[in-house]
């Protein structure tokens, strides 16, 4: 009975892939509108400087220029995700805080003219002392980047559960390590772009984004326009990975330019601008102190993590917290203290990332392995011993309702022969394991839920309207697949209208792993409501009880006597006759503690459910060059029931690239406030030849709340693949890693510290 589904759980072809393989899929830069202008942004050449004057006059005189703006043409409203983080003016008028910050912009008939006009904008600056290192920035006397934030401390998250000091004192084994990691580049394949078209008092916008509703609200505030007049439209997105969640200066710039010029405006960022001036990933320094009992039970954890936040708050409170939570949702910590500091520096703005927190997470895991070894245990045993199980409550009071952690650990270790490989003393080879849990959605007030609307047309075809957005993960196909299952019509009969703030209902967006658990759940409820209407008519027409009606392959039929059947489209027509068309609305709101607040009240139910995962990396080190290769990678993920296993695998495989292989090559390089690798040549996104042989294991469980038992699909691997690689390299070198990425020079140093002796 379990697997009687028609499409759910099947390896279906994603609904969006046809347009993508034929080149017809439209992305923001592909949009052409009549009279459209090209915009260019003038950016700050200083890491920290007072703005004395911005003069646009000469730029406006360049033939072909239709509008020019600076911060003085805006309302000067500062953006922030939280009330206490409203610090980002988008176009500053007081001072610039990083190299590449948006200062002024022009719209012209073409890009060449716009570029020419930029050179005629005059900005007078008074350079100020700048600070680039977060530890330095926290010192007394360091240059102050925002006057509202003393010592440049943007966010301090303090969590203190149990009696940490007492437990640490009593612990049998205590170890403290400090880990560092360079921030990564999102490096989404599509550079940021936005099209704004202002007409008749309405503003239409297209841009790659991870949540249209949240963005429309932000823009309506910044533009002082009613929300219904700011319409974010659907468009394909060339990747987000957490970096496109918030309103961006480009959105505001294109909007103001379009309003001023009375014509549509397109702004396409260069690869460099995308790297320097959208979002970057936090550099992190994490000190991890752990106390264990003789039997390997973790009795105390004491953390200090410093996040280099760059120039503005962005999603700061969330970013400062998430690495801790995905870890405490995985392991049992009776006594734990976490001090997370997000610190301003004069560098680009740092945001959330799919692999966020690698120094913290990989550090914890690598340290655990070495402590286990001292206690005569191995990584598998120690993880099973401390891992949470279904029904348990985390340190900060989140209840775990379904949990496949144990299974992911067991399956991944069995598949790889982990214990044997870990214990052997083969030189320059290592194996490592990383575990993590992932919240599926987190508190975002009334935006934490999703609503959906579905209608059946006279031919039995379906129009599905949902705020769920797709950044490449396959969320659109997911929504269609769920609707197809409930309504008994094939996926190709379903037209999707999504992520368009005029047409669709509120949805949390795709950045808190909510799309499956929350968004698709709302789709399911809406379709079930529509289904009931079909079933009622079919039962009447077929002369059977409603409970006996099944819907499949466009037919309504009696389950007892399957030959007794009718087309679903007949039911749709009958419904129109009756003046009660088949429509359904539905929503899903996760059971979250809405009193929870990232800084002021960091406890209570975090999410409706949690997913779990285990990664295992096998590495080989070239003993002479220190270069690491990763011949094999195995990942096991508990995603509840996979709606489309092929899509879940795709997420896991991508995670192994973006978090796993990235561990040996990816990292932003800085010289003061200058990003040295804002490109795709010196920033090393792994290539096909750098990839391991991959084995993905889907641990299929049934979440009681998830749609068809599903949870999020693959993010745990994005949050633990780095741990697996760092642990494997530590295993091979015989010493706990110190800094990521594990480039050959660092690995060679580690080898030389240990003279290549594994144990």
């Amino acid at each position, binding site marked *: 009975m379990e697997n009687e589904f028609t499409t759910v759980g099947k*390896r279906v*072809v*994603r609904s*969006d*892939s*046809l*347009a*993508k*393989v*034929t*080149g*017809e*899929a*439209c*992305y923001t*830069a*592909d949009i*052409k509108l009549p009279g459209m202008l090209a915009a260019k942004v003038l950016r700050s050449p200083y890491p920290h400087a007072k703005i004395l004057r911005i003069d646009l006059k000469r730029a406006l005189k360049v033939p072909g220029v239709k509008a020019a703006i600076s911060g003085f043409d805006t309302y000067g409203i500062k953006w922030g995700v939280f009330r206490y983080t409203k610090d980002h003016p988008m176009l500053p008028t007081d001072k610039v805080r990083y190299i590449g910050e948006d200062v002024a912009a022009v719209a012209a008939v073409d890009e060449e003219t716009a570029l020419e006009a930029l050179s005629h904008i005059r900005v007078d600056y008074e350079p100020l002392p700048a600070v680039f290192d977060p530890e330095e920035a926290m010192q007394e006397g360091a240059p102050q980047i925002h006057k509202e934030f003393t010592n440049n401390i943007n966010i301090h998250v303090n969590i203190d559960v149990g009696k940490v000091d007492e437990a640490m004192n009593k612990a049998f084994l205590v170890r403290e390590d400090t880990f560092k990691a360079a921030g990564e580049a999102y*490096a*989404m*394949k*599509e*550079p940021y772009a936005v099209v704004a078209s202002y007409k008749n008092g309405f503003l239409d916008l297209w841009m790659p984004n991870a949540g249209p509703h949240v963005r429309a609200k932000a823009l309506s505030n910044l533009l002082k326009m009613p929300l219904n007049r700011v319409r974010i439209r659907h468009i*394909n*997105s*060339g*990747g987000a*990975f957490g970096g496109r969640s918030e309103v961006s200066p480009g959105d505001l710039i294109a909007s103001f330019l379009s309003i001023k010029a009375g014509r549509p405006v397109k702004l*396409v960022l*260069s*690869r460099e601008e995308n790297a320097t001036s959208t979002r970057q990933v936090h550099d992190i320094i994490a000190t991890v102190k752990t106390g264990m009992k003789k039997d390997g039970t973790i009795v105390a954890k004491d953390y200090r993590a410093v996040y280099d936040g760059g120039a503005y708050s962005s999603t700061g409170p969330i970013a400062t917290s998430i690495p801790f939570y995905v870890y405490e949702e995985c392991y049992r910590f009776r006594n734990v203290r976490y001090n997370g500091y997000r610190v301003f520096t004069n560098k680009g703005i740092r945001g959330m990332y799919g692999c966020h927190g690698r120094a913290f997470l990989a550090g914890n895991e690598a340290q655990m392995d070495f402590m286990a070894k001292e206690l005569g245990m191995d990584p598998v045993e120690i993880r099973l011993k401390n891992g949470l199980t279904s029904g348990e409550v985390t340190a900060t009071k989140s209840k775990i309702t379904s949990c496949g952690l144990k299974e992911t650990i067991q399956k991944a270790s069995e598949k790889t022969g982990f214990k044997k490989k870990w214990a052997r003393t083969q030189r320059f080879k290592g194996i490592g394991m990383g575990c993590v849990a992932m919240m599926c959605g987190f508190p975002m007030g009334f935006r934490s839920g999703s609503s959906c609307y579905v209608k059946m047309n006279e031919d039995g075809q379906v129009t599905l309207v949902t705020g769920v957005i797709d*950044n*490449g*993960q*396959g969320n659109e196909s997911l929504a269609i697949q769920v609707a197809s299952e409930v309504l008994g019509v094939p996926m190709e009969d379903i037209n999707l209208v999504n992520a368009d703030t005029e047409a669709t209902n509120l949805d949390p967006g795709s950045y808190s792993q909510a799309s499956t658990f929350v968004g698709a759940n709302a789709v399911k409820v809406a379709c079930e409501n529509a289904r009931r209407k079909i079933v009622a008519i079919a039962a009447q027409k077929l002369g059977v009880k409603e409970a006996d009606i099944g819907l499949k392959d466009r037919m309504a039929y009696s389950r007892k006597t399957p030959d007794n059947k009718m087309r679903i489209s007949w039911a749709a027509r009958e419904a129109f006759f009756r003046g009660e068309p088949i429509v359904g609305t539905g929503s899903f709101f996760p059971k979250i503690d809405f009193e929870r607040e990232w800084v002021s009240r960091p406890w209570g139910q975090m999410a409706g459910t949690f997913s779990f995962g285990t990664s295992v990396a096998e590495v080989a080190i070239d003993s002479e060059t220190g270069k690491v290769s990763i011949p094999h990678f195995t990942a096991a993920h508990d995603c509840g029931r996979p709606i489309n296993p*092929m*899509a879940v*695998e*795709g997420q*896991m*495989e*991508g*995670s*192994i*690239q*973006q978090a796993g292989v990235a561990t040996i090559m990816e990292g932003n390089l800085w010289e003061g406030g200058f990003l040295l690798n804002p*490109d*795709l*040549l010196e920033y090393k*996104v792994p*290539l*096909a*030849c*750098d*990839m391991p042989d*991959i084995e993905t294991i889907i641990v299929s469980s049934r979440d009681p709340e998830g749609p068809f038992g599903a949870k999020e699909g693959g993010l745990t691997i994005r949050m633990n693949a780095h741990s697996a690689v760092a642990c494997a390299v530590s295993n091979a070198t015989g010493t706990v890693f110190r800094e990521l990425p594990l480039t050959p020079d660092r690995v060679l140093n580690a080898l030389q510290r240990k003279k290549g002796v594994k144990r």
Partner: protein
Amino acid sequence: MKTMKVTFHVNDEKVTLHVRPYETLLETLRERLDLIGAKEACGVGACGACTVVVNGIPLRSCLVLTPEVDGASITTIEGLGKDGKLHPLQEAFMEKGAVQCGFCTSGMILTAKALLDRNKRPTKKEIIKTISSNICRCTGYKKIVEAVEKAAEKSV
């Protein structure tokens, strides 16, 4: 500055255009011919998103001046399917789940097409080597390699 008259075939159709001498093939395809399947992701030849096939060879169109392709025969992703049927590579990319955000897909498929045109049954190693010309940020490449393998089987 004076424009230059350039004639070439795109997807079996002859076009004659007057282009700027400093115009890239990528710009010409996208802006003048509305062939938006080729994408600009880096602009300096580091990523392969703008790959098109010119006289049988995969080229990064962001590095090619349009006057250079005078007389050439160009295939873009839009011209890959014939008579309403998808190319085996396009089918295989769909069926194997090799597409996520889609921004690298055109370039990836065209790079693979040029490979299959010169080597009908490439080994897995050869496929990996060839597609290591293109950056994909989403997939981890596994399903892309599988898709090219599948298309190679199909087209024999």
